[in-house]
């Protein structure tokens, strides 16, 4: 421990004595990306890697995600880790629908991303068949470093997202494509 505390860098803006002007997008994005509340949806071995990621050794809390939310209504990031059987599909979809906007999804591991080795009648061939996915983490299972990298890519997305994105026609079309609401 160096004793040094890392503070998020201020977004670009105009600074003067007693004031700092920047865009609202940048400030909100900065706040959101450093206080993600993840909802772990762990069904198999990738979930074990996630437990390691959350624990003291890798410590996802360093990225502002120490507060796991086990209710979808309070969470920002749905982390799907593990094989999703077709029977589980509607459950996952309902969890996604219960999350409040803005929400992001990360598919951790080969199974959540594409079905992985389970190319068979009972397994959903990637969760992007039923819900939109923002970041895919490859691996079987991925190492904690990879999961952390996936979360950091999510942070990039959150930090750069326009406040109007969720009201845009493009986003509505995306939701319509998945027939969500």
């Amino acid at each position, binding site marked *: 421990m160096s004793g040094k505390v890392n503070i998020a860098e201020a977004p670009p803006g105009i600074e003067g004595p007693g004031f700092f002007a920047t865009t609202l997008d940048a400030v909100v994005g900065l706040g959101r990306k450093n206080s993600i509340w993840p909802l772990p949806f762990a069904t198999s071995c990738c979930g074990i890697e996630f437990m390691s990621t959350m624990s003291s050794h890798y410590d996802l809390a360093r990225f502002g995600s120490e507060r796991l939310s086990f209710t979808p209504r309070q969470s920002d990031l749905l982390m799907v880790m593990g094989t999703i059987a077709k*029977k589980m599909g509607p459950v996952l979809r309902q969890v996604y629908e219960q999350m409040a906007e803005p929400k992001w999804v990360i598919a951790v591991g080969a199974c959540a991303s594409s*079905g992985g080795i389970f190319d068979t009648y009972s397994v959903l061939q990637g969760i992007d068949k039923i819900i939109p996915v923002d970041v895919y983490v490859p691996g079987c299972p991925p190492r904690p470093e990879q999961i952390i990298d996936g979360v950091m890519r999510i942070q990039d997305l959150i930090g750069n997202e326009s406040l109007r994105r969720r009201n845009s026609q493009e986003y509505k079309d995306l939701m319509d494509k998945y027939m969500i609401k």
Partner: protein
Amino acid sequence: MSPLTKEQILSYFEGNFPNNYSLSSAPSDLLTFEIPTQQLYKIVSHLFHDDELGFQFLTDICGVHYPDNTGEELVVVYHLHSMKHGTRIRLKVKAPISKPDIPTLTGLYGSANWMERETYDFYGVNFVGHPNLKRILNMDEMVEFPLRKEFPLEDPTRVDKADFQFGR
């Protein structure tokens, strides 16, 4: 009590259901009988209620699909266990795939309920008289019986192994 010998079981079958069974094999000394589908309930009921034998534990039910055996494509295998003797036997019944009717054993064994549902789920065997014959493991919307041989094992919606992904 000591385990039942092969001879004891065979003489019981010969004495009680002559001409109604055939011994198909005995791998690892596990006697395997083929019995007529109509006689299934009667024979198992005998084995269950007989004080000497006491086959009162239904270990497993499973299905097999032999697409080339015309007229008897579906086979259902029952593993019966006698707690009294620590002895196990196996029964096989056959049914045509066009009319896969097999009498239920739920009247004898409570455990038959879920196992028959599972066999129905994967092979489409119609257990006549079952109180609640519906899917148990697969999702309810599924229309096929996935362990029948004509059903493709790989999911047809899978694209990442398709030829175009590799420039073919």
